[in-house]
């Protein structure tokens, strides 16, 4: 029986194989990394090695690219990914306090994941919901007009929902 990892692997290879075979094939590296993150949830060292051998690009180069771009994660994300907007509109409306509230309640810094693997905390720049500032996005849902109290309630609700 194939495991999901095998399936992901297979899909990634297929994705690489169907890339246009024009002279500038290497230029699709970032697209391939997006695909890998979509499949695995993050870009693991294993995935980088696989891409390296499939595309004939040194892993060192791939590592350099992955770590340059904020969008790529090298660690698996939490079940709830919290992106706190620190865009200008949110900042002038108190986003720093909202972020601090998340940090305090979860006991992690931005870019980290809670021990139980439930929450990962990220800083984001303008989610385009400035009208609701300050906002955060948890998975695909936008939460607006936040304040430290609301943050506490949101986390409690999610903890309950996860049980």
């Amino acid at each position, binding site marked *: 029986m194939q495991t999901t990892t095998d399936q992901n692997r297979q899909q990634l290879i297929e994705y690489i194989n169907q890339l246009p075979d024009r*002279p*500038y094939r*290497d*230029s*699709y*590296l*970032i*697209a391939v*990394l*997006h695909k890998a993150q979509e499949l695995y949830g993050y870009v693991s060292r294993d995935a980088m090695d696989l891409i390296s051998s499939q595309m004939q690009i040194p892993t060192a*180069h791939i590592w*350099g*690219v992955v770590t*340059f*771009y*904020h*969008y*790529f994660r090298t660690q698996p994300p939490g079940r709830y990914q919290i992106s706190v907007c*620190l*865009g*200008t*509109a*949110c*900042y*002038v*409306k108190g986003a720093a306090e909202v972020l601090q509230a998340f940090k305090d309640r979860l006991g992690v810094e931005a870019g980290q994941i809670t021990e139980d693997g439930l929450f990962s905390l990220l800083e*984001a*720049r*303008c*989610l*385009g*919901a*400035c*009208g*609701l*500032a300050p*906002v955060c996005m948890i998975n695909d849902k*936008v*939460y*607006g007009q936040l304040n430290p109290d609301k943050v506490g309630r949101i986390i409690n609700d999610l903890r309950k929902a996860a049980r």
Partner: protein
Amino acid sequence: MMEYAITICEGPTCIGRHADRLRAILLEELAKRGLKDHVRINISGCLGMCHKGPFLVVNPGYTIYGGVTESDIPVIVEEHIVKDRPIARLAVQEDHLFNRFYRIFGDVGFFGKQMRITLRNCGIIDPENIDDYLALRGYEALAKVLTEMTPQQVIAEVKQSGLRGRGGAGFPTGLKWELTAKQPGPEKYVICNADEGDPGAFMDRSAIEGDPHTILEGMIIGGYAIGSNHGIVYIRAEYPLAVRRLEIAIQQARQHNLLGKGILGTNFDFDIEIRLGAGAFVCGEETALIQSIEGARGMPRPRPPFPATSGLFGKPTLINNVETWANIPVIILEGAKWFSSIGTETSKGTKVFALAGCVVNTGLVEVPMGTTIRQVVYDIGGGIPGGKRLTAVQTGGPSGGCLPESYLDTPVDYESLAKAGSIMGSGGMIVMDETACMVDVARFFLEFTQSESCGKCTPCREGTKRMLEILERIVQGKGRPGDIERLERLGNMIKKASLCGLGQSAPNPVLSTIRHFRDEYQQHIEQKRCPAGVCKALLTYTITDACVGCGACKKVCPVGAISGTKKEKHVIDQAKCIRCGQCYTTCKFNAISRS
């Protein structure tokens, strides 16, 4: 029975207010009444009227229903759709530009167009349906170009229009096209820069989500003019809806022979592909963007050579911003003369701004160049809520500056904004009231650019770090005499010596706030005071005579700095106080003063 089209805004703000649930209820309601075939539902990206969300636009008639609740839906269906009686009570009445545009668009096309050129179709057409775009003269400009105009004539038209780049720098678009056209072919590239990195702006995103075909049409025309067959849209991965809409639009354009081989029966070939960014502000810079498309770290390189001569894969490349591209079809259709009649001497046409912050109406506005900031903030934006005072307006995001109240009559055009110490930028406009501390705002932007610096050149990598250190100590009450001058010296040095536009503009927020709000810096440094009450370390909390001795503050104080007996005035031990502000927010009697 009338035929209706209802547009529901599902931009992030409206989604945050459950626009998606409204859509489900609306569909259910229409199905229940057997009206499904008579009403078309369009989902649009942000329509720019965020403060009124969630809202529906019912066409024909351009009735906008704002702040819609679930229980309003059956009423709207019954009254408006079934009985054809728009409900005045629920409609948005205020004459905010957005609203006026809708009404005018219906009858006097000219005036409406003057206001909304690049966003002209947003919210009116279904962005996932090419027929809608075609019905509003879509791809007519392309047909005209391919059948009636030579590439030279197209370039001459764009040059004559006076259009300048909307991505920030304001470089004359026609000139850029001419330079790229002159380069030897055949391999050349056309790029649409949709990286939109300014953290507080979403104009390009709305333009693509609302009307993706306009961008494609502009790019195809650009390809024809410079002799390229290959277009690329470089877009942020953080904009999934915009990406999906572009994909659909490209697919449809191919089916209609508007992309691909032998476009519209001519011998011109052109195709467009999408490349995703991955969250790096510097990748908005054109040479870094090219690196990123090539699959590398997005590090800028020195110019010249400019992309026009040596760009993507070393080939001549034409890069323009989303909004720049969106202007092209209109210029071709209406003529350069018409276009150049809008705006000021040096800045033609309109500019889209994402208005946000401490202002009543937040959202997107498109105004003719030369409109004053005051008109944008007060006439369109509705002024400052809660009777507060305006302190500053920020334009240009992290590359721009803060302008004080006395500069509100500055017209929005490239030169006037630069002279005032800010820049046009890509269109972020953030209004700040008295609760914003200018030193802290400067620190905020510098923290952003510092962390986004790619690290390639020393002035930007090290210089911004040193500036940030100085700002951090100032907001922590450890500012030293001479810090302001140090910031100015460093800032000017970084501007002169950095490799790319990121470093060259990174000091702007600091320098502009020093220029216009020097006394705020001095108060922070000399008196250790933050007039806006933002910088926590500089605040002193004291209990006033209004204290009734309820003890609430004593309970919340995390360090036990408050003492006092019940029903008597309490006191704060300043030595113990950590300035967390909990007592201040807890007190129900306004008995704690913060200064």
